């Protein structure tokens, strides 16, 4: 017998990347509708990816910005 939660765990990354086939997406969605336990974990993963992007963002310093602007070819 298929362990659908285990299968869903395997499909989570490609599901969120949008790289599953249409049939596989349907399969995962059918399970996620019924399984709150897996659905929570999918939602968490989605939020985590967003959080990683936000948490690791560090603005560029004004100093570097000025240095890069100074590399431009002078206009005559």
């Amino acid at each position, binding site marked *: 017998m298929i362990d659908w939660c285990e299968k869903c*765990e395997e499909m989570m990354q490609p599901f969120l990347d949008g790289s599953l086939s249409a049939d596989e997406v349907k399969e995962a969605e059918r399970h996620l509708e019924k399984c709150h336990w897996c659905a929570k974990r999918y939602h968490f993963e989605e939020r*985590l990816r967003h959080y990683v992007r936000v948490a690791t963002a560090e603005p560029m310093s004004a100093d570097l910005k000025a240095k890069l602007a100074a590399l431009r070819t002078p206009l005559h």
Partner: protein
Amino acid sequence: MSESAPTAADTRRLAEEARARVRFEEEALELSDQVYRVARRLVGTREEAEDLVQQAYERAFRSWRQFTPGTNMRAWLLRILTNLNIDRGRRQQRSPQTTSIDTEAGDYFLYNKLESQVPDENPDEERVLERLSQDSIVDALADVPHDFRDVLVLVDIGEFSYADAAQILDIPMGTVMSRLHRGRRILKKNLADEAVPT
């Protein structure tokens, strides 16, 4: 060969080239925040990232004619930056060190670990996510071995496609996908280790 005065056509061509160059430089500078954001997580310190971005822009501005207008300039800049990073002494590893990394725990592992730390019964996902501090994310990412981290940073932070990441790192797309998959698991394993006292 005798030198002759520039013709009107020459003058027009030079003016057109100067305009193309200005357009190129402006477009590249507009992308600098995004380039820096990726560079910052490819290397260990802010100083290294700043040096790297500056060198990459110097090189890009010197070789601007090699850029094909209409193609992805952000990927082109990152390709230059990644090559410089490797030239700076980072040994390029064709086959990354994988033996000592346990990623067999699966993709639900982090959630399960964190959920067990939340005192409430059946907490929602936001409460579980709150167990992770911003610093713990930065540290956990820095601890991912660089072959995996490069792909993770390009795709999950830089939001590049698999194909762009493959081109930037000069590796096959299948390798991008497998390193990304494992890299995310390693990141989650590191996060679980940081967030959950053993």
